[in-house]
């Protein structure tokens, strides 16, 4: 076993253990911290594959953005301290069976297919990605790039509209939100 293989299996095990802890931790805040480590592990896998650009995007957007957003929302909804209720035994067994079946089925399909790695070497110059992103011709990604920028703008405006506090202009709205029906 070469060092590269050992590093890959270590990273994969680390990521899977962290992901498992993230879905099984009882406290939501701990779950978010385990998720952070799992995402760092995935970024490590990208580094191992020498895809430095994707690894950097992964760290900047996921670890720096999404997880911080999740931790913010955990604190804003005041539940960082309490344990989450455990799902019922029947639900957990059914979920585990579904998951085991899914893993077995997919692993069988993957094992039955011979993936032959291409002998060519991947050219991981970042400038290649940059040129493709601005290319308007065949195989270029200028249009999806613009579409994503519009989507991000729409998401930003949508978030503000959804999360903004009513300042008394919508009176009926305010009354319903002031009396929680629980």
């Amino acid at each position, binding site marked *: 076993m070469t060092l*590269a*293989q050992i590093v*890959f*299996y270590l990273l*994969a095990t680390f*990521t*899977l253990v962290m*992901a498992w802890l*993230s*879905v*099984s931790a009882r406290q*939501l805040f701990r*779950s978010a911290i385990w*998720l952070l480590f799992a995402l760092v592990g*995935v970024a490590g*896998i990208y580094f191992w*594959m*020498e895809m430095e650009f*994707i690894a950097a*995007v*992964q760290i900047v*957007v*996921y670890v720096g*953005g999404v997880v911080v957003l*999740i931790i*913010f*929302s955990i604190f804003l*909804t005041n*539940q960082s301290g309490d344990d*989450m*209720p455990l*799902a019922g035994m029947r639900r957990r067994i*059914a*979920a*585990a069976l*579904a*998951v085991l079946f899914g*893993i077995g089925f997919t*692993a069988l399909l993957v*094992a039955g297919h011979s*993936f032959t*790695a*291409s002998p*060519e070497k*991947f050219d991981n110059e970042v400038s*290649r*990605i940059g040129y*493709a992103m601005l290319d308007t011709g065949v195989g270029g*990604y200028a249009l999806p790039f613009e579409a*994503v920028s519009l*989507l*991000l703008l729409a*998401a930003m405006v949508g*978030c*503000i509209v*959804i999360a903004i506090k009513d300042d008394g202009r919508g009176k009926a709205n305010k009354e*319903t939100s002031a009396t*929680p*029906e*629980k």
Partner: protein
Amino acid sequence: MVPVSHMLFFSTALFFIGVYGLLTRRNMIALLMSIELMLNSVNINFVVFNKYLWPGQLDGVFFSIFIIAIAAAEAAVAIAIVINLYRSHLSVDVDDAAELKY
């Protein structure tokens, strides 16, 4: 050299760990975290296919970049909805938000 299928086994396991979380958790923020895990495993698949099977192309890399961007937008919108739901129901449990169910 690690075989390509081992990387795919790894991403399969990561995906189904996310599915397990999605099926057992009832808290909306925890559900969101499970979905992030699933999206990550799909990204790993795209990058692996791109790098090892079609090194001359860039489509897998671009799909992962766009998935990451859309996942960030999705997380932001989902959290805005969760915070709004918490304001009106004082809970982020999916079973407490069942007004539209019946």
